[in-house]
């Protein structure tokens, strides 16, 4: 196997992995703070992909620019979803929360089926197939831009949690729910804010994914599972872990597709997930609870 092919596939895997990481970051933030597993995560990403497709069809809006209004819209929707539906379920048992998110996911998938039909959609931007050549190494422009966008969004989220007062308050909720209530934090509002932020992450990721992947209404569940694998491998609730997990999974998917049967590549991911769950359930970068 030629070495330059391996290098090119590796680079593409890492760059796609950055976008995976951003998607999983949304899930990780929501779980880390709200402690609810968002089983509609992949479906939310699918909606963002359709939003990017629609904005492109209507205004020729580049998905990189479309990411801003889509993320803003998702932030509001995420806030409302948490405030309206999920907050009352915070104290309910896990299977109850799971059913709630499954119902939300069913409505989302079929809502998209009604709105957009079952056919695959995509976006064709002018520089879709352009790339930079460095020797034998090819860098796809859309992939590089998407990875940079994912890195920038993640960095912004990190800074928000590290520096802003609201970010610190959200971290306080995550560390100690009761303590946060005692010091007078508006926990329900902060939870809704967190869900909004997670939704905004997945919105940006969706706008990037549309450059590599055709969207259909039924795409959601497999990406929900992919996001789980990534956050578990990286560590549920750990932000850097989610990014690392994304890159790892993106890379291993790309290499598994190259060296073994492409259709068996996700088997490798699930195998990795089982091993991590058994031997390091807190994930590679997670803290022991």
């Amino acid at each position, binding site marked *: 196997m030629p070495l330059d092919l391996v290098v090119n596939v590796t680079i593409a895997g890492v760059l796609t992995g950055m976008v995976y990481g951003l998607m999983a970051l949304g899930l990780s933030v929501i779980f880390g703070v709200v402690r609810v*597993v968002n089983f509609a995560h992949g479906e939310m990403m699918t909606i963002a992909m359709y939003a990017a497709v629609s904005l492109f069809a209507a205004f020729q809006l580049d998905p990189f620019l479309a990411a801003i209004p889509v993320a803003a819209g998702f932030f509001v929707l995420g806030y409302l979803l948490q405030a309206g*539906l999920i907050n*009352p379920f915070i104290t*309910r048992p*896990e*299977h*109850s929360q*799971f*059913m*709630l998110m*499954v*119902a*939300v996911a*069913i*409505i989302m*998938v*079929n*809502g*998209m*089926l*009604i709105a957009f*039909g*079952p056919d695959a959609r995509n976006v064709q931007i002018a520089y879709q197939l352009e790339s930079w050549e460095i020797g034998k190494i090819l860098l796809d422009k859309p992939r590089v831009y998407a990875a940079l966008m994912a890195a920038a969004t993640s960095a912004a989220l990190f800074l928000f949690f590290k520096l802003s007062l609201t970010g610190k308050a959200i971290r306080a909720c995550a560390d100690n729910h009761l303590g946060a209530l005692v010091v007078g934090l508006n926990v329900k509002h902060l939870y809704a804010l967190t869900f909004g932020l997670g939704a905004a992450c997945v919105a940006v990721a969706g706008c990037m994914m549309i450059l590599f992947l055709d969207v259909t*209404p039924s795409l959601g*569940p497999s990406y929900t*599972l992919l996001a*789980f*694998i990534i956050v*578990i491998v990286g560590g*549920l609730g750990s932000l850097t872990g989610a990014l690392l997990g994304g890159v790892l999974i993106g890379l291993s998917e790309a290499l598994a597709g190259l060296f073994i*049967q492409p*259709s*068996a590549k*996700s*088997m490798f991911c*699930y*195998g990795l*997930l*089982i091993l991590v*769950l*058994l*031997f390091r*359930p807190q994930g590679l970068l997670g803290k022991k609870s």
Partner: protein
Amino acid sequence: MKQKVLLLVLFAVLLIFPKVVNPYLLSVGTLILYLAYTGQAWNVMMGFAGQLSLGHSLYVGVGAYAAAAIFVHYGIGPWAGVWLAIAVCVAIGAAIGFLAFRFGISGVYFALLTIAFAEFTRIGFDHLNWTGGSGGLFLKVAQRDQIDLANFRGPPEMYYYSILILVFAALVLCNYLLKSKAGYYWQAIRENEEAAQALGINTFRWKMLAVVISSAMTAVSGVFFAFYYNNLFPEQIFHISRSIEIILAPIIGGVGTLFGPILGAVVLTVLSDSITELLAYFGWEIPGIKQVFYGIVLLLVIMFLPHGIWPPLARKLGLAK
């Protein structure tokens, strides 16, 4: 007393059901009973012992494939096949349970582990040529006019009555389990595992028992599935949506109750079919619209009846103890 009379009436109705309905309603009835039985099997693990499995399609699929594969390849009928299915599923269930409980995995992590094993197996079966891979495994379609009990081939009524017997047997078994020592230990573990352990309950052993019983029961429903539908595809039988389908009935009906899975299966199937009928009546046959309504009803039930439909209904009917 009242409970027993109601139960007798219910089973009398179920017994004469195939004699008075058309073939379509008979297939709906069979589906309801299949979902009720499988939901009851899942309920042993989650409802009784509190271990949330989101990968029960694994046991349905492996059970179905085990019995179907030896039938197709060696002509060995399901009466032997069901034991193979049970043995394989119990082995898998015990292995997953052992790993998970030894490593102290519970709650969300346990649920995700069960999904991971189901998906892993699905992709594995996609590449297993012995069982037809992703192209599927097909059983010879049965002669519908005569009953061949030895090979479990026959008319739809035969399948209806056999799954009815399974539902009844599962009900009796679960009723016994709940009142046995195991049942009380499970409920203690479900409510508070640490407290149960502090009382001297070997939580590992009893959780293992729940997984083993649940996977054995689910294996039987897999065998039924294989011989009733006659075709198996990994993409369908192991898919996460199949696992969700299994757990919907007991959750909507009432987790941990005996009649919850049965009531839930009836409500969900009737709901789904009546939405189809209503939409057809109004001429709104847009793909996806039925599932949106289904999702909304699901959402409303889970929001307003957190314990499912059966507990409040039982109180209304004066059946609650």
